[in-house]
C-alpha cells in the first residue's frame, strides 16, 4: 500500500501542490489530466527521482520520503520506456532481476509469460516494436519485485492503428499481473477508455493539484469541479439561478431555462452556478410528443434547437444542437439517429431529466 500525504514539490517554475491519496495493495490508481498538469512529476517524486519540498510518502508502512530511489522498491516505466540501449531484452530484465528481493525465477518466468515476451528474449531492444518495448519495460520494472509500480502513459507511444487492440489486451494482462503479484499501481493517462478498463480509483489532476479523486463511478457520475466535467467531455455552462425553492431550481444558461432537481450544495443565496450535463443524459426527439401533459407534469426540460453538427467517435454518434445562445452536445447511437433521420440543420427537441442536471456553485 502507498500513502502520499500533503506532498509539495517544485520543478523549475512548476509546483505540485498538496497531493494526498492512498492506493491499497493490488489496486490501481489512474491519474488523469491534461499535458503539463504534473502527472510525470508526481510519479518521479514517488520514485525518488524528483526532490520534494514537504509531505510524506509511505510504502507498505515504511516512510520512504527521504530514501534514495534504489531503496524504495518502486518500479517505474516512463512514457518512452527507456530500455537500456545496445542490449538484449533478456539483459534488460536480468539487470533488474539481479536486485529483486523475494522474486523466484519461476515468478520471473510467469511475468515473462503473462506479458507474452518469451520469444523476444534474445532480441536487441532497438529491434522491438512500440508494443513489445512497452511489455519489456513493464517486465523489467516487475523483475525487481517492486512494492509499487508506476506506469507513465504506457500506451501513448503505441501506433494509433494498433492502440485499441493492444489496449484491451494490455489492460487484461495488467489486471492479471496486479492481482497475481498484489502490487499497488499508479497509472497515468489522458485516455478515458484506459481509465475505465484499468483503474479501481481515479484522480484528476490540473495545474499541479488533484481536483477530484474517487471511484470511476463517482468521477463519471458526479464531477466535483468545472475542470473535471470539461475534461470528461461533458456540457459545462455558467448559469444564473432565477428560482430556488428547496424542491427545484430554475437556472438560466444563455437564454435557455433549465429546471434542475434541488441540491443541498446550492443555498438560496447562491446565484452564480456551473451547470453540468453529460452528453449521454440528453435525449433527442423529433416530435411534439414531449409537449403532452404527462411530460409537463414531470418538470421535464424540453428545449427546441437546431442540429449543427453530427459526427462519430468510435461507435458513438455525437450531435451538437444549438439552443438559443448555447451549444449542447448529445450522444446517441447510429441506429437511433437513422430512425429519427437527424441531420445537420434539422430542428430537434431535446429532453434533459432534472435529476441529471448537476449544479455546482461558481468559484
Amino acid at each position, binding site marked *: 500500500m502507498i500513502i502520499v500525504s500533503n506532498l509539495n514539490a517544485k520543478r523549475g517554475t512548476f509546483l505540485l501542490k498538496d497531493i494526498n491519496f492512498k492506493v491499497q495493495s493490488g489496486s490501481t490508481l489512474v491519474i488523469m489530466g491534461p499535458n503539463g498538469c504534473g502527472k510525470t512529476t508526481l510519479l518521479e517524486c514517488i520514485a*525518488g527521482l524528483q526532490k520534494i519540498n514537504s509531505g510524506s510518502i509511505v510504502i507498505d508502512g515504511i516512510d520512504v520520503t527521504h530514501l534514495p530511489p534504489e531503496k524504495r522498491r518502486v518500479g517505474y516505466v516512463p512514457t518512452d520506456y527507456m530500455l537500456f540501449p545496445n542490449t538484449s531484452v533478456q539483459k534488460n530484465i536480468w539487470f533488474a532481476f539481479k536486485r529483486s528481493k523475494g522474486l523466484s525465477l519461476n515468478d520471473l518466468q510467469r511475468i515473462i509469460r503473462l506479458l507474452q515476451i518469451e520469444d523476444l528474449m534474445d532480441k536487441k531492444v532497438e529491434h522491438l516494436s512500440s508494443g513489445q518495448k512497452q511489455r519489456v519495460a513493464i517486465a523489467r520494472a516487475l523483475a525487481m519485485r517492486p512494492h509499487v509500480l508506476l506506469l507513465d502513459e504506457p500506451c501513448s507511444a503505441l501506433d494509433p492503428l494498433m492502440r485499441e487492440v493492444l489496449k484491451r489486451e494490455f489492460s487484461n494482462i495488467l489486471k492479471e499481473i496486479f492481482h497475481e503479484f498484489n502490487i499497488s499501481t499508479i497509472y497515468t493517462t489522458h485516455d478515458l477508455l484506459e481509465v475505465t478498463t484499468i483503474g479501481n480509483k481515479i484522480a484528476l489532476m490540473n495545474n499541479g493539484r488533484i481536483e477530484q479523486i474517487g471511484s470511476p463511478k463517482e468521477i463519471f457520475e458526479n464531477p466535483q469541479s468545472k475542470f473535471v466535467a470539461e475534461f470528461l467531455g461533458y456540457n459545462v455552462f455558467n448559469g444564473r439561478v432565477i428560482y430556488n425553492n428547496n424542491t427545484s431550481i430554475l437556472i438560466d444558461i444563455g437564454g435557455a431555462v433549465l429546471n434542475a432537481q434541488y441540491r443541498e450544495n446550492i443555498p438560496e443565496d447562491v446565484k452564480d452556478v456551473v451547470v453540468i450535463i453529460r452528453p449521454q443524459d440528453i435525449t433527442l426527439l423529433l416530435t411534439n410528443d414531449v409537449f403532452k401533459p404527462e411530460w409537463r407534469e414531470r418538470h421535464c426540460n424540453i428545449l427546441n434547437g437546431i442540429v449543427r453538427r453530427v459526427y462519430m467517435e468510435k461507435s458513438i454518434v455525437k450531435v451538437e444542437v444549438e439552443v438559443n445562445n448555447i451549444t449542447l452536445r448529445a450522444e446517441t447511437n447510429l441506429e437511433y439517429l437513422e430512425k429519427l433521420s437527424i441531420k445537420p440543420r434539422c430542428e430537434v427537441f431535446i429532453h434533459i431529466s432534472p435529476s441529471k442536471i448537476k449544479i455546482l456553485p461558481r468559484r
Partner: protein
Amino acid sequence: MLAFLSDEVRFATFLSIVTATCSTIASLIICLPIAYALSRYNFRGKSVIEGFLDTPMAVPPIALGIMLLIFFVRNPLGIFINEKVIKFVFEVPGIILAQFTVLSPLAIKMLKEVFNSISPRYEMIARTLGYTELESFLYITLPATKNSILGVALLLWARAIGEFGATMMLAGAMRLKTETIPIAIYLSLAAGDLVGVATLSLILLLISCGVQVIVRKLLQSGFAL
C-alpha cells in the same frame, strides 16, 4: 632502413609511446569524473569552471610549458614537489606532466560530449531498479559509452605522441633522456640530419594514421562522439 633501427629512433619511439600512454591514462582517470560532473550536474559557478578548464586550449603549449617550468623552479610548493616528491624538470615525468596539461582540457571537452550523448534518464531508471548512483554509472553509462571513451582515448594518445612545445619547455630536449619523437625531430633538424627527420616524421605519420583507422572502426561499431 638503418635509420629505423638506430638506438635514438628506437628510444624516441619507445619513450613517446610510454609517455603518451601514461599521460592519456592519467588524463582519462582525472578528467572522466570532472566531465561526468559537468555533464550531469548543475551547480553554482559551473560556467566559471567550464571557462577556466577551456582556458588552456587558447594558450599555446609552449606557454603552458613555461608556466609549468616557472612553477617548479620558482614557486615554493613547486620546488618542494620537484625536489622531494617527483622530479619533473628535465626528467621523463616532466614529459608526462606536460602532455597531461595539454590533454586535460581536450579530454574534459570530448568526454563531456560523450556523456551528453547518453540520456541521464537511463541511470535514473537503473536507480529505480535498485542500483546506486555509482553502480548506475558503472553498469549503464560506462558500457554504453565505452566505444566513445576509447575513441577519445586514442585521439588523446595521438595528440600526446605529437606534443612538442610544453614537453620541450618542462622536460627539455636531451638526447636519449627526454627525447620523444617530436623532440628527436627537432634535434635531428638542428643537427641537419634530414634522413633522421624524415624517418621520425614517417613514424609519427604511421602512428597517427593507425590511430585514425582504429578510431573510425570503433565509432562505426558504437555510439557517435
